[in-house]
């Protein structure tokens, strides 16, 4: 079953990513990205990170991507037009991406025996649940980073408000 999950949702994620690449209108790209994120949430769940899966759905695709869609609709961005730099970008972009992929996969494949296998139910058999593990770590040993991130979010809010304001 894990294999089936992996294959279906993995393929879905890749398809969504490719669609993001190939679509011309940004709204189509945004919606493809939402698909990718949902698939990833399932994959997180299959790897035993339930809290993250939930966070992925709620925060990432539910908030951040909605934000993207709002901005696209606000700015009424149209289809992309072709410009002079496009040709050069194609020449550099595809081979570059391919090179990175080859590099990374080379590394991962050369070490695949050391990685071992995944176990769907592995975590689910533990006494403590995933979320209690995460929270116990987060609020004890990593309390300071946690507080700092809340400050970070505050700063981001302020920055966004200032930057996006209309000139008075």
């Amino acid at each position, binding site marked *: 079953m894990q294999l089936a999950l992996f294959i279906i949702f993995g393929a879905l994620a890749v398809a969504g990513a490719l669609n993001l690449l190939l679509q011309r209108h940004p709204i189509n790209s945004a919606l493809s990205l939402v698909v990718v994120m949902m698939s990833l949430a399932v994959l997180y769940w299959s790897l035993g990170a339930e809290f993250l899966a939930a966070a992925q759905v709620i925060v990432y695709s539910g908030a951040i991507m909605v934000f993207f869609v709002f901005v696209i609709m606000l700015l009424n961005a149209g289809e992309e037009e072709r410009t002079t*730099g496009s040709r050069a970008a194609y020449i550099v972009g595809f081979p*570059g991406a391919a*090179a990175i992929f080859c590099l990374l996969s080379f590394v991962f494949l050369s070490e695949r025996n050391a990685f071992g296998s995944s176990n769907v139910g592995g975590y689910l058999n533990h006494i403590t649940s995933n979320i209690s593990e995460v929270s116990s770590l987060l609020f004890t040993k990593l309390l300071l980073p946690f507080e700092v991130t809340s400050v970070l979010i505050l700063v981001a809010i302020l920055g966004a408000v200032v930057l996006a304001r209309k000139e008075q």
Partner: protein
Amino acid sequence: MPPASTNYDYLWLIPLVPFAGFLINGTIGRKLPRALVTAVALICTAIPAAIVAWLWIVMKAAGPPDVIQAVSQPWIQITGLTVNFALTVDHLTLIMLGVVTGVGFLIHIYSVGYMAHEEGYWRFFAYLNLFMFFMSVLVLAESFLLMFVGWEGVGLASYLLIGFYFKKDSAANAGKKAFIVNRIGDFGFLLAMFLIVREFGSLDFPHVFNAISVNPEWHGGMLTAIALLLVLGAAGKSAQIPLYVWLPDAMEGPTPVSALIHAATMVTAGIYMVARCHTLFDRSPYALGVVAIIGAATAIFAACLGMVQHDIKRVLAYSTVSQLGYMFLACGVGAYAAGIFHLLTHAFFKALLFLAAGSVIHALSGEQDMRKMGGLRKRIPITFWTMTMGVFAITGIPPLAGFFSKDEILYQAFISTNPLGKLLWFVGLVTAGMTSFYMFRLWFKTFFGPEHFEEHADLHDHGAAVHAYSGSHAVMVADPEENHAHGVHESPWIMLFPLVVLAILSVIGGWVGVPAAMGGHDEIGHFLEPVFANGVAAETATATASHGLEFGLAVVSVLVAAIGLYIAYVFYYKKPRTAAALAGRAPALYRLVENKFYIDEIYSALIVAPLLMFTRLFLGGLIDGGIVNGAGAAAGGTTRGLSSLVRRIQSGNIRSYAGWLAIGAAAVLLVMIFGRSIWPH
């Protein structure tokens, strides 16, 4: 024998006190009042003179010989060479010191009056004190290296003082010329020192001369080479052929400078050096012969040129060159004592002549051209009488100083073992006649006959006027309020006092060297015997010496001098147009001599011009422009080129930034993945 424990460290005061004077006047002299500058300068010259006088007493009282030393810290101490800062005084040094400090002090006094209206008063005395310092070091030095320090230093002081009126182009150029020509001589001196180190392993006089003395079989060869190189150095400093060209131009400096440096002291340094190294020269008859020939040739050549000069200082300059030639000649035939004797008397009367000329120039408000003088003897009597003493002394009229010293030289040349001895004697004789002629020419033209000068009713200033050559009153630098009485007037007493002293010395100065042939005891010869005991002259003294010969030769030279006097009398007093008529009958020859045989132009074309071209093209163009500039330009250009390449990354295009980001990240990844082996884990 002075006890060995006696401390002679006070010898160091002789050079160091004037140096202190230089420091004081040089640094804060500009702000001090004139009186204080004068006081500092005079005190710093009087103290060494007093110490030298004290030394005379000490050395005389100590009885036979000798030499005293003051050694201080080691200077260079490496394997193979040790040089100390050491001073030494023997009888030769005493005479030189007497000249340097005594005549120097008198000239300082004179300068107080002469330079009274000058703008750079403090600078003048600072340089003069500096000169005294270096000259003392030169004379007192116990090693070639320390002497060389003094040698170079007096060259520096000479440059500074010749170019004292630095705002005038000709003065600055003259200073440069003097320094550069001197450098050529110094090059010879340096090479000689290198050879000495190689041969003897030391630069100390006692060490080198002892080594030569204990090896009587050493002759010629390397010693000749060393001696010839030293002669080159001496020729540069003492203005002999071929390096005499700087001395006439050096007259651009103020007259006291000409008197002190270019008559009495600095130019005699070459003679002193040859005399000091006589042990070395005696072993090389070839070098001695060269010295004698150069001396005689210079003497007659300079006398020729001196006969047609119109500037009073130039006549005296060529006269100096000629008299230095006499001294060289004396050393060349081995009569070192005679050479030093003439050095002494020459210091007296040449300094006197220059100072008196300065007095004349001062009286005429800066006029130096003799064609614009005449009839001054009634106007400036004291100057006239003192200058007369000087003229009579230099022409060798007995019983004044020049007669005894010059005749000693001529006699020694006649009886010397040098095969050219008689010829050298004859050349010296002819030169004596020419000397008499041009000196009396100067005497008649300046003081007798009709007055050709203009009375200057307007303001004048010594300094500005005296450096206005040939009558053009170009630059007025001092305060116009400081007027003197209008018209021709005698100099102030502060300038006349040294003249009188030097005149007296010119009369009686020769009496220390009256030879036995004329009933004297030749004190100076005996005084210098310990120094030159093993000299060539001692050997030849027993040759064909006879009192009758000496007396006869003396009579001949007096006759020749009288002939010169008579001719000058006829040309310039009785029938003043004779000279012009003669010149008119041989215009080409006259012009040739008047233009100094075009030697300066020949040097300029043969040596200076190619050197300049070489410098400009090769050193200036290729090395400086090409390599040095090129290196700088290359560094700059490389940076510029590289940066123009790198600048393209900043295209403003976000996607290219992204591309570069990705490439950078990929590079880091690569290094991390595959660079494991080179990491020091």
